[in-house]
């Protein structure tokens, strides 16, 4: 029943307006004080109070009918509220979209054209508001401010089409203007605020600069990942030349380095990486990128050195920085995903990378040491910050054990390798099928066979080779046999078995299973041959050739055994087949194999295979000629 306006005279209205403006300015100053007072509960309280104050003020203003003289203040308060809320929550939510929409509706209310437009989307709302504001010049600066926030929201939610349209309208909406967002952002020139305007936490120009950098970097990174390198280079240059906080600059420089490396400019790439490292704050990504660069250049020493540095860099505890109470570039960037060249993972992942690279590059002693360090850290549990390499990108934990064992065997430390294998088996014993029951069922041969993870067989394989190295053929043969038994039962199943560890899926490829079987058969055959039981050896080699016809080592060992047994015809057939295989382009079979298996296969590979083959061929041909 009260009359709508209690502000009878213009004088009261003006003084109220001043009062509210004063309150807004006080709250903004309070937020700035909080900003400077470091991270503490008091600061958090202060910021919360400021936010509440802004919310209250906004409620007061919304309680009155929208009026043009009050709107600049009201929209400024809205902007301040959104900025503080977003910087506190470190991200945009649906609430902010609603706040912006509310502001726009209030503008339209003064134009008395709200009715039918309520149903329209926010895009149409902006169109109407900007159309109306051409009549209301005093609203233009604050509308640009609000538009900056809308742009940030759309950039963070990837609504680039809407963003382009908005910027086109803001820039004067000439038809046929460029659709290039970067250009649009550059040409956008928000009008300057008047000196007596209410204070803001971050003005429209500041927002524009942040948007420009964030967009350039996002685009550059996307282009880098999708492979359009020259365009990525120019976008990233744009990002680096803009307003760029130091941690971000490190990322931009690293991305530039990655881009130049892929473009075949290693020297320039190196310059950028060095610049990134000088930038401080986060050393991880540039060091990882440097290791890739050296790997491409073939400089193994430098590559491993940068990986070692990477491990050290990642072990340093990162201090969480105090977030600024404005919208920062980082807020508008997507989370780095593993596909990004800037994803450097955790310390343990880096350590694993270092160890596996050492193993691949033939530095077995170093590799063994690194693997032992890694296992100690993982199993010790004293440092909670140390995390295992997660499954999907890297190998699963049992595979890390197997790689460690392989590295130890490679380094000539068979006893240690046996210990590692034993540790793996005891720790997972509860998960394995009940072996005793398994034997019984196998003898009866009636029941369904249990499925057994591949890595369990691989443990026995490596144990066998360790015994070979320790010159204990009996043990070795028994381990190889156990491995083979498990392998022949382990039929690769496509469907995931219950809740069993899903990391096995990576290893349970057909190729790996075949190669494992061949490797086990060859290893056992070699042991038989060494102990003079050539018939048994022949049997194993024959099986391995059947199992894996493409495996040249299997055929070669078969050939040698046949020659030793003096079975010339069969040997000749094998020989021809081998030769035919040599003519064919060598298949890349090892690409999908686990690292430990690759290393293992190198052990049973005879280096002098080619020469022996030629020698045999000549010896075969001689009798024919005669």
């Amino acid at each position, binding site marked *: 029943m009260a009359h709508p306006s209690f502000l009878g005279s213009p004088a009261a209205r003006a003084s109220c307006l001043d009062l509210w403006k004063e309150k807004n300015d006080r709250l903004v100053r309070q937020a700035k004080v909080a900003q400077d007072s470091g991270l503490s*509960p008091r600061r958090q309280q202060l910021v919360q109070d400021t936010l509440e104050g802004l919310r209250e003020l906004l409620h007061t203003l919304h309680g009155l009918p929208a009026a043009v003289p009050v709107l600049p203040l009201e929209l400024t308060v809205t902007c301040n509220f959104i900025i503080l809320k977003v910087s506190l929550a470190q991200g945009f939510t649906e609430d902010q979209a609603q706040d912006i929409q509310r502001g726009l509706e209030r503008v339209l209310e003064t134009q008395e054209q709200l009715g039918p437009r309520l149903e329209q989307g926010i895009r149409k709302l902006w169109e109407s508001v900007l159309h109306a504001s051409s009549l209301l010049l005093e609203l233009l600066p604050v509308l640009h401010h609000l538009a900056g926030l809308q742009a940030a929201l759309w950039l963070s939610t990837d609504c680039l089409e809407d963003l382009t349209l908005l910027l086109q309208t803001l820039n004067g909406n000439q038809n046929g203007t460029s659709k290039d967002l970067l250009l649009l952002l550059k040409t956008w020139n928000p009008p300057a605020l008047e000196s007596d305007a209410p204070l803001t936490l971050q003005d429209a120009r500041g927002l524009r600069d942040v948007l420009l950098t964030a967009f350039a970097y996002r685009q550059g990174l996307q282009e880098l990942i999708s492979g359009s390198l020259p365009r990525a280079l120019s976008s990233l240059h744009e990002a680096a030349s803009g307003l760029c906080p130091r941690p971000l600059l490190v990322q931009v420089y690293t991305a530039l380095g990655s881009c130049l490396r892929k473009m075949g400019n290693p020297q320039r790439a190196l310059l950028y990486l060095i610049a990134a490292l000088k930038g401080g704050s986060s050393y991880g990504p540039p060091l990882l990128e440097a290791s890739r660069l050296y790997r491409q250049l073939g400089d193994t020493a430098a590559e491993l050195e940068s990986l070692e540095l990477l491990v050290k860099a990642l072990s340093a505890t990162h201090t969480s920085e105090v977030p600024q109470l404005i919208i920062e570039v980082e807020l508008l960037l997507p989370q780095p995903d593993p596909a990004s060249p800037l994803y450097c993972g955790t310390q343990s992942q880096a350590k694993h990378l270092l160890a596996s690279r050492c193993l691949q590059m033939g530095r077995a002693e170093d590799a063994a040491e690194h693997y032992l360090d890694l296992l100690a850290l993982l199993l010790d549990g004293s440092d909670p910050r140390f995390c295992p390499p997660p499954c999907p990108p890297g190998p699963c934990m049992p595979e890390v054990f197997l790689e460690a064992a392989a590295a130890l065997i490679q380094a000539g430390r068979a006893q240690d390798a046996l210990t590692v294998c034993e540790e793996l088996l005891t720790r997972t014993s509860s998960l394995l099928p009940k072996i005793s029951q398994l034997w019984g069922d196998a003898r009866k041969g009636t029941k369904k066979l249990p499925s057994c993870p591949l890595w369990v067989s691989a443990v026995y394989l490596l144990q066998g080779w360790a015994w070979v190295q320790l010159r204990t053929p009996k043990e070795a043969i028994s381990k190889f046999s156990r491995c083979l038994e498990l392998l022949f039962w382990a039929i690769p199943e496509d469907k995931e078995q219950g809740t069993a560890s899903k990391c096995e899926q990576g290893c349970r490829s057909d190729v790996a299973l075949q190669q494992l079987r061949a490797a086990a058969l060859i290893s056992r055959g070699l042991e038989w041959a060494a102990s003079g039981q050539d018939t048994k050896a022949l049997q194993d080699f024959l099986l391995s050739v059947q199992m894996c016809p493409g495996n040249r080592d299997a055929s070669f060992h078969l050939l040698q055994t046949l020659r030793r047994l003096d079975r010339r015809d069969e040997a000749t057939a094998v020989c021809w087949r081998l030769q035919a295989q040599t003519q064919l382009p060598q298949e890349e079979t090892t690409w999908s194999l686990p690292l430990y298996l690759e290393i293992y296969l190198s052990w049973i590979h005879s280096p002098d295979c080619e020469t022996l083959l030629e020698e045999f061929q000549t010896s075969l041909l001689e009798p024919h000629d005669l």
Partner: protein
Amino acid sequence: MAGDAPRVHYLAGFSCPLGGLEAGKPRVLCHEAEVFLSTGSEFVYVYDQEGGLLTAVYRFPGQVWHLQLLAPHRALYVLCARRGIYCLSLDTPSRSVSQANKDSEDGELPYPVIPVDPDACVLPDATLCAFTVLDDMLVTLAQGPTQWKMQLFERPCLGEDPQPGQVGEVELSTYTPHPGIPGKPTAPCFLPVLCCVSLPGSRAPHGHPQGRGTFTLEEALFGLLFGADATLLESPVILCGLPDGQLSCVVLRALVTSRSAPGNPKALVRILHHLEEPVIFIGALKTEPQAEEAVESELPSEEVHSDCLVALGHDGRMLAIKASWDESGNLVPELQEYCLPGPVLCAACGGGSRIYHSTPLDLCVVDLAQGSTPLDPQQPNRAPGGLPPTLCPASLSICSVLTVSVSPRAPAGETMLLALSAKGRLMTCSLSCKTPGPTRMTAASADRKIKELLSGIGDVSERVSFLKKAVDQRNKALTSLNEAMNLSCALLSSRQGPRPISCTTTTSWSRLPLQDVLTATCLLENSGDFSLDRGWTLCIQVLTSSSALDLDAAGSAVSYTIPVDRLGPGSQREVTLPLGPTESGVLDLPVTVSCALFYSLREVVGGALAPSDPLEDPFLEEHALDLLPEQEGICLPLSRHTVDMLQCLRFPGLASPHAQAPSLLSPACDPVDTFLETCRVPSREPAGLASLRAKYLPPPVASVQVSAELLRMALEDARSGVPLCSATLRWLLAENAAVDTVKAQTLSSIQGVAPSGTDIHLIIHEVTVTDLCPAGPIQAVEIQVESSSLADMCRAHHAIVGRMQAMVREQAAQNSSPPDLRMQYLRQIHANHEVLLREVQALRDRLCTEDEASSCATAQRLLQVYKQLRSPSLVLL
């Protein structure tokens, strides 16, 4: 089990709000002789079981949602809603609190209320909903804007840096935010449940299973659920039950993330199951009989390695998972879902194979051990070690327990539960594990027996009072509904005759400091024998007509709703509303005032549908109210009254002798101007422009002619010796506030003031119309309206025509025959008018399309045509 007679002892009572405590938030846990308890309010109580008294009460700045005790460190971690996690040191209670402001106002309490110092907040975060604390780690679950977020911190201690080092974080799953006030977080109905599972013998220290928190699972089940990696690393695993029913797990040692390597939910979070109802409890049981090694080594109860994981949902769905081996020797999970009576308020398990769960009606116990239930005869060959196919809950006859925990202090062979009831009573309940044989009743046991019976009676009476309240409320709602129904029938059926409830509207001018305001007074009268009670509202809608000057603007409507709070038979209520004029002096007449009665179903029925018992399903309330939309109710129209110009006229010149003529304040005008105006009154000579206008611009005039015969018949009873002209005037002004003054004099013309302040002159005289009727001249009365404002003239004319129409309709109903008319003449007039109307239409159309300059001319022409239309060429007969 059913033979277990529980022995209940009440320990203490705690303050609880009207209607009992709310489920979901209270916690109770026990360490040695101390009981730590929160009731969902801002207090945490420490109760000493040996001394039987409260030793301390801590007051937090907000509701307490969760407690956890880290016994080896003597630290109590408390989650305070919207604040964060606080840490209290139990050794030196004074260190964590500021001594200075020990409450003085609570002086009457026997124990000190200690306000917790803000510095005790070790992890400030307003979005936290759950946490669990391990020896060196703190795991929290925060409610993000759209997702649940699990965070891992190094365990913060008191007096350390307020921002503990964050080790990792991962987002769990999306959830639909609770509808509430946007921007304002609402208190969640159900809190998520977190607990930590570890491997036996792992180095990660655990083994303080106080309340919910941590437990140990045997290797096979652990590996099966969480995979080979977690088993190899011997990593603790965090199990998380969400209010949407999702049960997921996160391997703790894998949860190390940083800004450059954020947690990938796909790699880190594994969803174990979906209960499809809020998860209330996660626990672990030992279902297989204690192996001999446990017996021989006398393992303390906390080192039991559980072999069964259970999760319990709010509506009673329970999931149990065990590990077993299939025929070929593979390790496979055995899942079994059970349905327990719900809604479940809380649950607990204490190392054995039993799980205790509480519903509003009862505290029940179920046993998942083998052989605890008779085996299903259909499945005699069940594999040993399997889960029972069905469960039979055994009642413990304790109702409305909100939180329960298993006390470790129970003597051998017994289980002791600590429970908090909805009435805020803390009690212990002892159960013997074995069915006691018949024993001779000794004096002591008789004593105990009586005590038990008494406490049982206490329980039942608590329950009865709840139910009684609910029944009362529902009865009241039904009575109210019945009465509303009767009233509606009476009102809607009696179209003729006096209505039991009536509403009459009158208008009058009232003086306000700055301007006079026309007010409408609605009088709601109850003349029937019903009484209007709670739930009824009087809705008055004031609808202004559209302004004639603005072609497109629709009239505005203002609605007022006034709750009718008990209007008994014979009583009445008066409501006065301002009609205008507004600040700008505009009063768009005619104004229509419609009154209606509205009966809100939501208000009356909503209260009864809402469970009076807070322990009942909180969802029920929402659902029932959802059935009643916001606007649902009964609407009974009462009256409709049109306020026109004739009712709003004021006659300053007609003041009755005893009342001083009130000087009229023209609306919205400056008091100074008014003053000057009154000063100028003595000089009757209009000066300057006004006089010129008066001279050369005659005021617009409109008139209506009515046959005298018709008027005479209509006004027959009211006339009684008064000349027809003045009777007509009285009739026209019958609803005006000044009607009495008019009646006192015999007037045939009157000068009034319109709400906008312009003068309106009503002149009534008798005329003779000659050329209309072949029978001869007709005696008629001409009513002339004259005003300097065209708009006001139109409004007055409109009002008069309205009266005439009403009168003619009334007379026609009485079947009076009109005299013969000259049809030709009438037709001519009709044709003329049709032409004019067509022109009006054309002009109005043009007005819409034309620009300003030419529209002026059009408007001019339009006015002329209107004037012609209004010209008195016709007599009402």
